[in-house]
């Protein structure tokens, strides 16, 4: 994984040689495929609209689909090229695709008046595609089922499966485009030698867990008194957003609506599954079950969950916020898991996070959100693999200092296979971590500048940057537009793991300074 980071830096350097018109055509032509896929996606909620007799929403999905198709057709015609993508194109294309797809998918959300403005609809759509889960929908409880389904489906497709890779796998001309798209999207999956087979494995894993999750949530819902239809609809949507570690909910109270430990158990299962590396899922499916216990990320995930869970539970206990052990576990541990896996399901009202929860617990949750889940999973944040690599490198450097100068200190970490801890790997992990922390500071400062408390600002910023979705109540339709745009940027940057943004910025600056060469 960190090796891919290193290659992105070299991409940035190669950009220094300027952008040609052909570069733009290659990027634009591949973006046209994203437009087609988004257009196709917008047909699915029509089925839900028909099932729930919400015929008034159907034209909005058709308009969104038509605009996507028209844009796709125009781009694929006027920017047609036979040239293949290189890594630099893939990185810039991925950065732009994660903006273009949400902007197109937000059209029906906006037209259906689910949000107050197009900016809010775009925020909702970016939050969906990036698997964040922060919402600006003012009245989720009275939202059309079809629009609600779209919000959840965007998370499943965008974050759970990876829309760009799938788009290019289906519509791309060669496998190389898809391989590069994986890298551009900050994924480094080597599950199968063929990219199409890899895509199939990803889709297969996602659908398998989607079915398992839907059954779990539906059974729990019926058991807890929901009618079967509602239990299935809510179960399907929560399963999609649970696996995608997205955190959107069909209810304004999120999972608090159900007042049910069984729904929370189902959510915990899906959140942890979503936060685990695809490669590890595949290894386990192939019978290598012991990988779970040997993997550096899984070990770290368990340790971090245990430590943060204990810290938050102890803090809640001593602050007299909750009086029973049951409540401390269900509120403390549940939200640590939700934060660490970067899901964002919550059973505490946002206002209660801001007004009642002790600042220490809020800071711990913020740390958990910044660290995030496993690499190559659906979760966001810095990723446990990088944290593990940095920790191992720290220990190795201490050993080097203590041992005689002639001693050779080698480090390895186990991630699917034993991997040597090289300086390149460590540098890659450190670079992403520092970039994350700089953006975290940037987002926190802007939020504080709008008059919010430091702990709440850290909490909300880490939630947006880590693609989490837990909210302390700052994110609301009434928040200032500057803050909305800032969080949209953070969600986008967090999803792309930042380096793609730097490459895009370099591409634009060079284009402006030197003009586009023929």
């Amino acid at each position, binding site marked *: 994984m960190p090796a891919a980071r290193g290659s992105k830096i070299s991409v940035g350097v190669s950009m220094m040689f300027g952008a040609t018109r052909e570069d733009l055509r290659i990027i634009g032509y591949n973006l046209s495929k994203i437009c087609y896929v988004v*257009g196709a996606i917008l047909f699915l909620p029509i089925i839900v609209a028909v099932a*729930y*007799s*919400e*015929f*008034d929403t*159907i*034209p909005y999905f*058709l*308009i969104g*689909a*038509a*605009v996507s*198709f*028209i844009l*796709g*057709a*125009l781009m*694929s*015609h006027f920017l*047609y090229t*036979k040239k293949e993508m290189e890594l630099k194109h893939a990185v810039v294309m991925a950065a732009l695709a994660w903006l273009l797809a949400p902007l197109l998918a937000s059209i029906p959300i906006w*037209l259906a008046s689910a949000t107050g403005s197009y900016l809010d609809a775009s925020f909702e759509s970016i939050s969906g595609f990036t698997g964040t889960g922060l919402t600006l929908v*003012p009245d989720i*409880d*009275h*939202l*059309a*089922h079809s629009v609600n389904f779209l919000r959840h489906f965007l998370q499943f497709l965008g974050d759970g499966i990876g829309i760009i890779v799938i788009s290019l*796998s*289906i*519509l*791309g*001309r*060669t496998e190389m485009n898809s391989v590069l798209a994986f890298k551009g999207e900050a994924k480094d999956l080597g599950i199968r030698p063929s990219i*199409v087979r890899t895509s199939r494995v990803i889709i297969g894993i996602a659908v398998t867990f989607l079915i398992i999750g839907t059954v779990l949530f539906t059974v729990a819902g019926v058991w*807890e*008194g929901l009618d079967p239809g509602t239990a299935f609809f809510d179960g399907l949507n929560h399963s999609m957003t649970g696996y995608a570690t997205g955190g959107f909910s069909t*209810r*304004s*109270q999120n999972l*608090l*609506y*159900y*007042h049910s430990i069984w729904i929370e158990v189902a959510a915990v299962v899906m959140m942890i599954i979503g936060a685990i590396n695809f490669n590890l899922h595949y290894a386990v499916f192939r019978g290598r079950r012991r990988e779970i216990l040997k993997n550096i990320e899984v070990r770290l995930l368990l340790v971090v969950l245990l430590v943060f869970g204990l810290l938050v539970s102890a803090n809640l206990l001593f602050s007299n*916020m*909750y*009086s*029973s052990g*049951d*409540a*401390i576990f*269900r*509120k403390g541990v549940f939200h640590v898991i939700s934060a660490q896996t970067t899901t964002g399901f919550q*059973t505490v*009202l946002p*206002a*209660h996070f801001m*007004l*009642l929860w002790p600042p220490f617990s809020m800071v711990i949750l913020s740390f958990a959100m910044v660290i995030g889940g496993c690499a190559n999973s659906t979760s966001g944040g810095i990723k446990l693999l990088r944290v593990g690599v940095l920790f191992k490198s720290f220990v190795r450097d201490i050993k080097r200092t203590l041992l005689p100068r002639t001693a050779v200190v080698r480090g390895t970490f186990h991630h699917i296979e034993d991997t040597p801890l090289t300086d390149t790997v460590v540098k890659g992990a450190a670079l992403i971590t520092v970039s994350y922390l700089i953006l975290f500071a940037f987002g926190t400062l802007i939020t504080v500048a709008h008059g919010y408390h430091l702990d709440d600002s850290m909490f909300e910023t880490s939630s947006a940057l880590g693609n989490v979705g837990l909210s302390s109540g700052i994110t609301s339709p009434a928040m200032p537009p500057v803050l909305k745009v800032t969080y949209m940027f953070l969600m986008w940057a967090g999803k792309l793991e930042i380096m793609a943004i730097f490459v895009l910025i370099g591409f634009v600056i060079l284009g402006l300074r030197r003009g586009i060469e023929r």
Partner: protein
Amino acid sequence: MKKFVLPIVVILVLSMSGLAGAESGKVLIENSRDFDGNQVTFQGEVIGVMIRGNNAWVNVIDNGFAIGIWCSAENAKSISFTGDYTHVGDTVLVSGIFHMACSEHGGDVDIHADNFTLLSVGRGVERMPSLLAVVVSVVLMILAIFLIFWLRHLRKERGKIVPWPMHWR
């Protein structure tokens, strides 16, 4: 005449006193510590009912702030409509003990209802498609299909047809 007026006046006074004492969802949630363990009155639209044995959860929303009401199953069964896209839910007036973190229910914020009054029955909401939206969607969709095929035809004419992704097998 008097025998009709008096009960009406009594009902009006009672319902108005109930309304006057009802706390808004925003006030209850943002000042939960002040209300914790106290008797409160809360009014709003029912958005969900889950019956659990002899009791039930009724989620009630007031101006975007929803709270779970723990009441008897009998009360919950009196509800006809729960609010969603095509329905306005029943309006209820509830008085009971407010908990910012209920020890009986895993730390959830809730109200344990003593009195549960159905103020008004909800209704279905007719939502007709906008004629403008229908026309625009049909026109745009025809344009999109036309463009896709026409531009593809143009490219074919120039001998630049896009190869079909044969590797997807």
